[in-house]
Structure formats: structure tokens, C-alpha cells
């Protein structure tokens, strides 16, 4: 252990800790901007400067190691002046369009300017040329707002192993962008949106579809149907002041009805359907000697990743569409017929924790209903904005429930939102379908949690040992793909989610996200799972009914047509 003094307090920390970590331990706040716990500490922004006795220059607390006997001041006149200087320099090259910015009131630069009491920017002059890239359906970049903190570059390169963006040029001309000034739409970007989650300012955001959805809601000729993914209900509350991990399903449903949506269905219903289809696909591949390991296909960021970087492994992917696309196709066929609504008058809106799903719903093959299966995808953040725009008092809403017949769901479906959830849900059903016996302990804890790659072996009578693996974050996915390529991945089934932590910390979720928040959101979903009457997808009465009334059997002709899809090999560049 190391002893040091910060602002006169004696603090003990472990060897290797930084001054910032030591200060945090003693509840001493040091402002930071480019620093991002678990991802990046590079001392670039010069906002976390502190004074260290015996050191001529001020030092960046996020990278300076604590050592025995160090005497640190975080609140001297010199420190405050230096921090102010750093932030004023950033502001001198910032458009200051706070009032019309997508990150207004949720911006780290704005917050720091306020904290430091900046009342004027003493430096004026030329501003960097910044252009807007809004060509992709998922991500919007506004370079004029970029402060070059490089958090997006680090998360894209080191966590996701994609490197879609990099610092181009030098000095005043530095831009964070793809090679050759390309748009994200034209390169190997997965649209996972993790960059938008870590951007401290409004330089990278989702491409908003709010106006389009308002227009649909205002159109009296349209029946507007909304569905939401499980991860949304575990995080939306944070936008309205609830602590992370608060499940707000009932209030969210009340809110979307007040926004004017005509029907409220649950993507969880389609998650149960995914398990029926994918579980049977697994058993079929195991039984018939098909391509193994089978890999899940719920995460559109992951799909685009494998299409760009491992097209030769596409036969491993399950052909199942992601749950919200399944639901979209069913709403415009099964439900349209049942309710006597012409599908051309329907608008399906998915509220997702995801930016990649905006791209997914625009894929040309996603129109098996004869129409665009899902018309718009809103992120959790966009839904929160709409609720605020409508002046809805979210916290005082009475709980409401989903509409029939596409609203009933099981615990297996709701855990889709956390890494390992799809695997656990699939095992619950595959086990019972394969053995005909009741699974006593439905909780497969080995596939839960935030370890990068999780493995488990499940003995299933009649099949033997079923080997499974779960990866979250595309860097971990890449490791598993390399194992498949060199023949050392002897798994039957792999679950992959593009975002670290799974959908609970998807690119469209409330900001900020860190491992503690990931754990709390996932915990909320596992709690809901335990509270539900049905915890296995095949026990969902509405699922049984839709197979009887409409789909026939899993992997049958109707399922094949509406619920399954195909993939496209794409370039690495």
C-alpha cells in the first residue's frame, strides 16, 4: 500500500493507482474530460491537472501514478487557473450551439464549463473546419463539436476491434473520421454506436427519427404500433431521475400510449419466438450434422461485423431475424389479418437500445410482410426526448400493460437484454425440447456476468455434452471467430452481442454507461425473469397460439418466409 496526501488528507491506495483514483477514494472530485474509466486514460485534455509538491509542472491526475509520500493539491489557485485555461482553449474552437445541440443538458463539456465557472472565452480566432456526416441511417457525426478527446477512437479500436474512425491529419487540422474523408455509411462501420455512448459532447449521436415518428402519430390514416426491447425498460428510468437498474415497464407503456401510439406490443414476445426458431435450428444442426457452432443473430451490429470482417463464416449464423424484425413482419401479416387492418396503413416503430437497428430496419431484405417490416427505430434516448417533448410527467404515471396478442412474454425473453441471456433462454427451451423432461434449475449462471468470453458445458440426455460460449463486445467476438477459423472452437452454440454488456449498454442507451451501470441494468432484467409466471419461451401461451393459428411449426414454411433472413458479404474497407 502507498500513503499520499491530497488536500491535507492522508490517503492509502494500492500500488499502481493513479492520483485520480486515490482522490476518488477520498471523495475528492477532480474534473475529467478525455478520461473514461475502464476504457481510456491518456492525459490529453489537461482538465484533470493537479499540483504536486516538488514537481515544477502541473500533472494530469488520470495518468500520474500515486507514490509514497506524494503531496498533492487539487484545488490551488494555480490548478483552477490552468483547468480554466484548458477548457477555454477547447471552447475557443467550439461552435457553442448548446441550445440546439442533441446533447444539451447532458454534455460533459457544458458541465465542466459550468463547474469551473467559465464566464467568457478569452481566446478568439479561426475555428476548425467541421463537416456533418449524416449519410448513414444510424449515426450522425458533427465534427465542429468534436473536442478530439479520442474516447470514440479508443472504444472503436480497443473494445470493438473495428477501427472505423481514427485521428486524421495533424494539429489544428486534426479530424476524427474514416480514411479518405469517407462517410461511416460507406466503410466497414458496424453502427454499434458505442462511440455515441462515450462521446462527451454532441459530436457523435444517433441519427434521430423523432420527427418522422411524430408525423406518423399525427397522421389520422395511420395505425401506429410500437414495440420495445427488454433493455429499454431497464434503462429508460435513468432519463427521468431514477437510479440505474430501475425497471420502468409500466410507466413506459403508459407514456407511449400518451404519445399517441395505437397499439403497444413487446419485442419480448418475438424474443420467445426467436428461441423457438433458433433452439430448433440448433437441434436440427446438431442432429443432421449441419454447420456448427451455430451463432446467434439478434445483434445487428454483430451481423454487420461478421459481414465485413468474417464473411467466410456467415454459414455459422442462425438465419433467424432479430426479434424486433420478426415482430414487425408478424404485425403486418398475422396481426393485420386478425385485427382487420390494411397493413399499408400500419406504421411499426421499434424502441431499441441500439443504433445498428436503424440500419437493420432499412436493409432491403427486411420486407417479408410485403411492406417495410419495421418503419422506424428509435433509441431509448430518443423515446425519452419524445416523452419530454410531450410534457408527460413520467414519474407520476400509473403502470399500464402490453396489448394482446403480441404482448405476452416469459422470463427467458426479458433476459435477452443482458449478455448471456439469449444463450440461457435457448438452453432452457432446447433442453426440454430435446429431452422431453422438465428442467428443474432454469438459471444457467455460468453464462451471466461481464467476463469477456464465458463458456459452459451443459449435459443434455440423448445429445451428450452441449458446449456453449458467450461473447460481448466485438473485440471478444473477433477472438472467438479466430478460434473458429483455426479449428479450436469446439462449441455447439455461441451467443454474440456487439455491445459490451449486451443490449443493456447498447449504443442507443442513456448516457453514461460503465460496468457498474451495466450490472445494475442486467440485475433488473434477471429480477423480472424471476418474478414472471413463465420462464421458458415454449411455455408462453401466446407463442403456442401463434404456431397453432398461423405459423405452423418452428422452421416451417411460414416461419421460414417471415422470421428468417439471409446475409451479405461486405468489404473490409
Amino acid at each position, binding site marked *: 500500500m502507498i500513503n499520499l496526501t491530497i488536500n491535507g488528507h492522508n490517503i492509502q491506495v494500492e500500488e499502481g493507482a493513479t492520483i485520480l483514483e486515490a482522490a476518488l477514494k477520498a471523495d475528492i472530485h477532480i474534473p475529467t474530460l478525455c478520461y473514461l474509466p475502464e476504457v481510456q486514460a491518456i492525459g490529453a485534455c489537461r482538465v484533470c491537472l493537479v499540483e504536486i509538491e516538488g514537481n515544477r509542472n502541473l500533472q494530469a491526475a488520470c495518468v500520474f501514478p500515486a507514490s509514497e509520500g506524494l503531496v498533492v493539491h487539487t484545488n490551488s489557485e494555480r490548478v483552477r487557473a490552468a483547468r480554466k485555461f484548458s477548457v477555454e482553449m477547447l471552447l475557443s474552437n467550439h461552435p457553442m450551439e448548446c441550445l440546439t445541440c442533441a446533447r444539451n443538458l447532458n454534455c460533459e463539456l457544458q458541465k465542466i464549463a459550468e463547474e469551473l465557472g467559465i464566464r467568457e472565452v478569452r481566446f478568439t480566432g479561426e475555428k476548425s473546419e467541421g463537416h456533418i456526416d449524416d449519410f448513414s441511417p444510424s449515426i450522425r457525426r458533427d465534427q465542429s463539436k468534436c473536442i478530439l478527446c479520442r474516447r470514440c477512437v479508443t472504444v472503436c479500436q480497443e473494445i470493438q476491434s473495428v*477501427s*472505423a474512425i*481514427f*485521428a*486524421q491529419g495533424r494539429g489544428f487540422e486534426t479530424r476524427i473520421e474514416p*480514411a479518405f474523408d469517407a462517410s461511416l455509411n460507406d466503410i466497414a462501420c458496424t453502427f454499434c454506436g458505442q462511440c455515441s455512448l462515450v462521446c462527451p459532447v454532441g459530436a457523435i449521436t444517433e441519427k434521430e427519427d423523432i420527427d418522422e415518428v411524430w408525423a406518423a402519430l399525427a397522421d389520422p390514416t395511420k395505425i401506429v404500433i410500437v414495440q420495445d426491447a427488454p433493455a429499454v425498460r431497464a434503462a429508460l428510468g435513468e432519463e427521468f431521475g431514477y437510479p440505474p437498474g430501475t425497471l420502468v415497464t409500466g410507466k413506459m407503456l403508459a407514456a407511449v400510449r400518451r404519445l399517441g401510439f395505437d397499439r403497444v406490443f413487446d419485442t419480448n414476445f418475438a424474443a420467445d419466438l426467436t428461441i423457438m426458431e433458433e433452439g430448433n435450428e440448433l437441434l436440427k444442426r446438431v442432429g443432421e450434422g449441419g454447420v456448427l457452432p451455430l451463432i446467434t443473430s439478434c445483434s445487428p451490429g454483430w451481423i454487420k461485423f461478421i459481414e465485413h470482417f468474417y464473411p467466410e463464416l456467415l454459414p455459422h449464423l442462425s438465419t433467424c431475424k432479430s426479434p424486433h424484425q420478426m415482430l414487425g413482419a408478424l404485425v403486418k401479416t398475422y396481426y393485420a389479418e386478425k385485427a382487420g387492418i390494411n397493413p399499408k396503413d400500419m406504421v411499426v416503430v421499434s424502441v431499441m437500445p441500439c443504433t445498428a437497428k436503424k440500419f437493420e430496419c432499412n436493409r432491403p431484405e427486411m420486407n417479408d410482410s410485403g411492406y417495410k417490416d419495421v418503419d422506424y427505430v428509435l433509441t431509448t434516448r430518443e423515446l425519452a426526448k419524445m416523452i419530454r417533448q410531450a410534457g408527460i410527467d413520467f414519474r407520476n404515471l400509473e403502470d399500464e400493460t402490453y396489448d394482446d396478442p403480441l404482448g405476452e412474454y416469459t422470463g427467458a425473453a426479458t433476459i435477452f437484454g443482458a449478455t448471456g441471456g439469449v444463450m440461457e433462454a435457448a438452453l432452457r427451451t432446447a433442453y426440454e425440447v430435446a429431452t422431453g423432461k422438465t428442467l428443474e434449475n432454469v438459471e444457467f449462471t455460468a453464462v451471466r456476468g461481464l467476463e469477456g468470453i464465458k463458456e459452459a458445458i451443459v449435459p443434455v440426455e440423448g445429445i451428450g455434452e452441449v458446449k456453449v460460449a458467450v461473447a460481448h463486445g466485438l473485440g471478444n467476438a473477433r477472438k472467438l471467430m479466430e478460434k473458429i477459423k483455426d479449428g479450436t472452437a469446439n462449441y455447439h452454440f455461441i451467443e454474440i452481442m456487439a455491445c459490451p454488456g449486451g443490449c443493456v449498454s447498447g449504443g442507443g442507451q442513456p448516457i453514461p454507461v460503465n460496468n457498474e451501470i451495466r450490472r445494475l441494468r442486467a440485475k433488473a432484467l434477471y429480477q423480472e425473469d424471476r418474478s414472471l409466471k413463465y420462464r421458458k419461451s415454449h411455455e408462453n401461451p401466446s407463442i403456442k397460439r401463434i404456431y397453432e393459428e398461423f405459423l405452423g411449426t418452428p422452421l416451417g414454411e411460414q416461419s421460414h418466409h417471415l422470421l428468417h433472413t439471409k446475409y451479405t458479404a461486405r468489404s473490409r*474497407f
Partner: protein
Amino acid sequence: MAVENQCCCAKTNEAELYPELEKIITEHHGKPEDLIMVLHKAQNLFGYLPRKAQEMVAEGLGVSLNEVYGVITFYAFFSTVPKGRHSIKVCLGTSCYVRGGQRVIEKIKKELSLKVGGTTEDRRYSLDVVRCIGACGLSPAMLVDNDVYGRVKTTKLAEILERYE
């Protein structure tokens, strides 16, 4: 004059150089840490770094093309545009700077409609800035290929450049 100092690559068909690049990349296969070294060799080969060469380097070393381009655009040494038959280097060292080097640059930029680091459309000239060529007594100075010109007057520029076909 000074034709012998021209870069040889301008005469070669670019497509013929790719197998050569392939050989270089093979020596550094899967080594992202060799990126700058390989880019140096590639630029020596082509005279600049064409997009296809950048893609081959990215693929061979296991680096993203976006990162390769980031490194290329960071270092002034690397160029993504082909160099002209004649290189104009204007000195902006302290002495030349105070004696009007910047005016020389502005004049060339305007006359040839090109940017610093760029090449004219007919590939006749490329323009670069250098910091001190050791001819401070002759400032403002510039180099065209390997010929040094001192006390350059903007009014005489056209006449000098005319000599280089």
C-alpha cells in the same frame, strides 16, 4: 537541366509496382508495429501512397485502413497525391521567412493553382515547404529539383518555372 534528378517512378507504369509492394508487405506480414517502415518503403516505390497500396498495407499488416490513413496524414513526409515531374521546395526557415518566403509561396500557389503538398493537374510541378536549406545568405531561397535559386523575386518566378518542362 536537372532531368537526371527526377524520380524514376514517374516513368514506370504504376500497376507494375504492386508485385514489388507485395514482396515488401510479406516481409512484415501481421506486424502492425512495422507500419511506418512499410509506408516508407511503399512511398519510395511509388513516389506517393496510392489508395490501393494503402489497402494492401492495411490488409497485410493487420491494421485498419482508417489507422493507416491516420498515420499517413499525420506525417508531412507521406503524400497521398502523386508527385509532379519537378519538385518545387520553397524555404520557410527563419531567414527566408522574414525575407518574404511566404510571398513566394502565395505567388506559386496562385499561378499554378495548387496547394502546399499538392501537384498540378498536368503533373508538371509539386509544391512543398522546407525549413532551411542552408542558403540563408541568399534568402528567400527555393529549390526546383536540385537547383537552388536565391533572392527569389515573385516577378521572376514564372521565368524560372518555365525552364522545367
